[in-house]
């Protein structure tokens, strides 16, 4: 462990991302046309400006995601100490996730998670 594992991680990261791109380069048959150079919109020719108004549902998703995503940051310090603390840590994290789950239920009830 220590610095050597970091180096291994870095090398593995580079190999994975660079390898993926290399494989795509080799195996994908390249065709070029002007349509392809444009902004991608599900294969349909894009119309109008990109500054169009989005449905308000997207913002709700973003807000809900923002909150829940950041709450999960607490799982990292928990994961570090869970072995040494033992069963108490397990109970506490279950309470924590239960509280988050109540928030999730509320969001579900309000229809914030319904696709438009």
């Amino acid at each position, binding site marked *: 462990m220590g610095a050597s594992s970091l180096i291994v991680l870095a090398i593995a990261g580079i190999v994975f991302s660079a390898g993926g791109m290399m494989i795509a380069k080799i195996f994908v048959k390249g065709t070029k046309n002007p349509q392809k150079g444009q902004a991608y919109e599900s294969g349909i020719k894009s119309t109008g400006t990109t500054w169009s108004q989005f449905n*308000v549902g997207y*913002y709700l998703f973003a*807000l809900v995601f*923002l909150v829940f*995503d*950041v709450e999960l*940051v607490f799982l990292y310090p928990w994961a570090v100490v869970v072995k040494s603390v033992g069963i108490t840590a397990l109970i506490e994290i279950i309470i924590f996730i239960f509280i988050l789950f109540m928030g999730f239920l509320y969001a579900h009830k309000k229809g914030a998670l319904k696709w438009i």
Partner: protein
Amino acid sequence: MEIIKGVPLTSYILLCSMLFSIGVLGVLYRRNALVIFMCIELMLNSVNLLLVAFSRYYSDSNAQVFVFFIMAVAAAEVSVGLAILMMIYRNTKTTDIDALNKLKF
């Protein structure tokens, strides 16, 4: 890890004070609510950096836990702020806080 300790603490304090001052000035001068939120984030992040630096210096992990909490609270603050901003945008079609002049002395 040695590199982090190699930088003297004064440099951290200076950097954080500068970042914090930029944030404060941004809050006071900028007129767009989104930019003000960004400046508040800058203030909070400079505080986070300072706390982590002190925590390394004292070899005490309490402040690092504090940083986690500040991050979570800042996210909650921003999401409530953005929700309010959406309400305002619905009413006024702008995020410029100079439009918020209905209440005055």
